[in-house]
């Protein structure tokens, strides 16, 4: 019987090459932050109509994926799925890294990033944003403790399970908070819906696992460690189920809106007449990010290949970006009514769909957040004993037998 042995990543040239590439992206992102701070947000495509743009799409994706990335650890320690246990360290690390990356984007896009200390010291507790500051920092702290408990010799599995339970409940609260940023906006027809919270939780399960799969495979390939195909297939099936849950909540969201005459205009915008937004919804979110990966995973032959799982993960991430883009930008682009029964028009785009064309600085900043998350993950795996040395099929079976 071989026990699971965790070892740091070995510094191979490939690893350094990847790290260098990521650092370049981060440097470019910081340069774009300075550029925007210097010239003002006029340097971006964001306006007084589309006040949140690409940076927020990236930030929300990363934050949502962060809580989802913790699922593997939760399944192992809270729900006793022992086959995932060897990966729960990576799961915790990736969750923290993604959250840090997302928060970095959010914070660096502020109009006054130099005043971050104000956000940390002055609170308005009727704001879900203020609560989220605690949910995010609390998440980092709890997952850090969780990780520590997993990695310490003296901590019993009972304690790990309890800490894991707290972390799991906290991540549900965190994603509820993120969804409520939109769900509690009463003014805009595209938001103001309680379903935003569970929708975001479903999204987190799906996006988080997709990112986890890709990072897992990449790290194992970079460190040339064997990885079980069976494990990947089981992740793939989970991923397909999560993607289906996202589709389900989306369907409920839009069907509910369709039923209410007051939301008919917004639904027509997203589902039929919104041009790019409609393409993003049907082509991006539903087809690429939902139907196609689900079909791939459940395909009797192709579904049992690594390629299927990896491709499905990539598609779900792309579809996820489309989904969040359509929530964030689409929700703002659709005009707000001013008075019931009246059409509005003005020199400030009242009554008209707002246009948004992102520019380089905001795209680079968003990619920088992704790079920060990946660097943090790699660095964690480099200095800590995060990754198991051997997850070959044979080893997994032996462990399962003794589990």
């Amino acid at each position, binding site marked *: 019987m071989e026990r699971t042995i965790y070892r740091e990543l070995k510094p191979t040239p490939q690893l350094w090459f990847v790290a260098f590439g990521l650092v370049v992206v981060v440097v470019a992102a910081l340069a774009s932050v300075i550029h925007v701070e210097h010239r003002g947000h006029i340097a971006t495509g964001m306006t007084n109509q589309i006040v949140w743009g690409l940076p927020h799409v990236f930030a929300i994706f990363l934050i949502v994926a962060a809580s989802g990335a913790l699922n593997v650890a939760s399944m192992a320690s809270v729900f006793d799925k022992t086959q995932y246990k060897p990966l729960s360290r990576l799961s915790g690390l990736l969750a923290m890294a993604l959250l840090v990356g997302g928060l970095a984007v959010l914070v660096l896009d502020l*109009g*006054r990033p130099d005043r971050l200390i104000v956000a940390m010291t002055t*609170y308005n507790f009727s704001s879900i944003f203020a609560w989220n500051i605690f949910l995010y920092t609390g998440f980092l702290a709890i997952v850090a403790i969780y990780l520590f408990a997993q990695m310490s010799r003296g901590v019993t599995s009972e304690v790990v399970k309890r800490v894991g339970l707290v972390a799991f409940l906290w991540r549900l609260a965190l994603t509820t908070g993120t969804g409520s940023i939109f769900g509690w906006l009463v003014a805009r027809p595209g938001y103001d819906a309680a379903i935003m919270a569970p929708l975001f939780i479903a999204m987190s399960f799906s996006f988080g696992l997709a990112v986890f799969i890709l990072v897992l495979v990449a790290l194992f390939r970079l460190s040339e460690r064997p990885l079980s195909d069976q494990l990947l297939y089981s992740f793939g099936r989970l991923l397909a189920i999560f993607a289906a849950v996202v589709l389900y909540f989306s369907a409920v969201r839009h069907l509910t809106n369709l039923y209410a005459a007051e939301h008919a205009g917004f639904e027509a915008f997203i589902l039929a007449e919104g041009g790019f937004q409609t393409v993003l919804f049907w082509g991006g979110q539903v087809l690429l990010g939902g139907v196609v990966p689900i079909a791939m995973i459940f395909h009797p032959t192709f579904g049992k290949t690594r390629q299927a799982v990896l491709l499905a993960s990539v598609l779900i991430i792309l579809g996820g970006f489309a989904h969040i883009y359509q929530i964030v930008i689409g929700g703002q682009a659709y005009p707000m009514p001013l008075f019931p029964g009246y059409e509005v028009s003005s020199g400030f785009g009242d009554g008209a769909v707002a246009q948004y064309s992102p520019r380089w600085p905001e795209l680079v900043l968003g990619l920088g957040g992704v790079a920060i998350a990946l660097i943090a993950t790699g660095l964690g795996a480099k200095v800590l004993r995060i990754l198991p040395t051997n997850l070959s099929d044979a080893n997994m079976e032996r462990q399962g037998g003794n589990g």
Partner: protein
Amino acid sequence: MSREKLSGAELNRRDFLRSGAAVATATLAPGVTLMAFGGSEAEAAADAGKRWGLLIDVGKCAPDCDACVSACADENGWKGQGNPETDAQWIRKVTLKNKATGHEASMPVMCQHCEQPPCVDVCPTGASFKREDGIVLVDKHICIGCRYCMMACPFKARSFVHEPVVNQKTHAPRGQGTVESCTLCVHRVDAGGVPACVEACAATGNGAIIFGDLRDPESEISKRLAEYPSVALRPDLDLNPGVRYAEL
């Protein structure tokens, strides 16, 4: 250890600033006289017994007139760069057209100074706040520029400053990276005056905007509201705005 002490000192300094009490002086800076502050006994101008509001008579508002908008821009120094998407828009003229009847109305829309302002609810730092007398403002000293208030405002009344600013008015500071909106010309109101838009509208002869205290039943605005029908924008949200529209 020093938390209580500090707040004590804070209190003392405040008393000192307001009343010039000699005892307080010693705690602040020993041996310092306080002549400069001695006279400062002015009452705070934001009075909880008042609620400032506007009544806009849409019937009197001329479609091609934007005197209120340019008066506001002059008064508060927010002249734009010719790009409506990113320029400040503290007040704008909108045209409403009844979908069923085709009836058109032109009117100014600015911050509605809600009693239940969504922008104040969502602001993470409390930079968005409502004064005792109902005026909704942004405290730019603690605004971090997150723009959540702009997401929350049903009236698109708030603007984010997209570019560096120079030559601000002394009474209307505004700067890059913070959010701003109509202040109901709070500097004029505190001095007992009326907002610039109201003055400009009266000067054109239209007289479509009335300013006054909604809590005072004897004020002109209260009398007019009691006598004639009026509406609030976005009545579905039940925010009880301080800005009302008549003849819509």
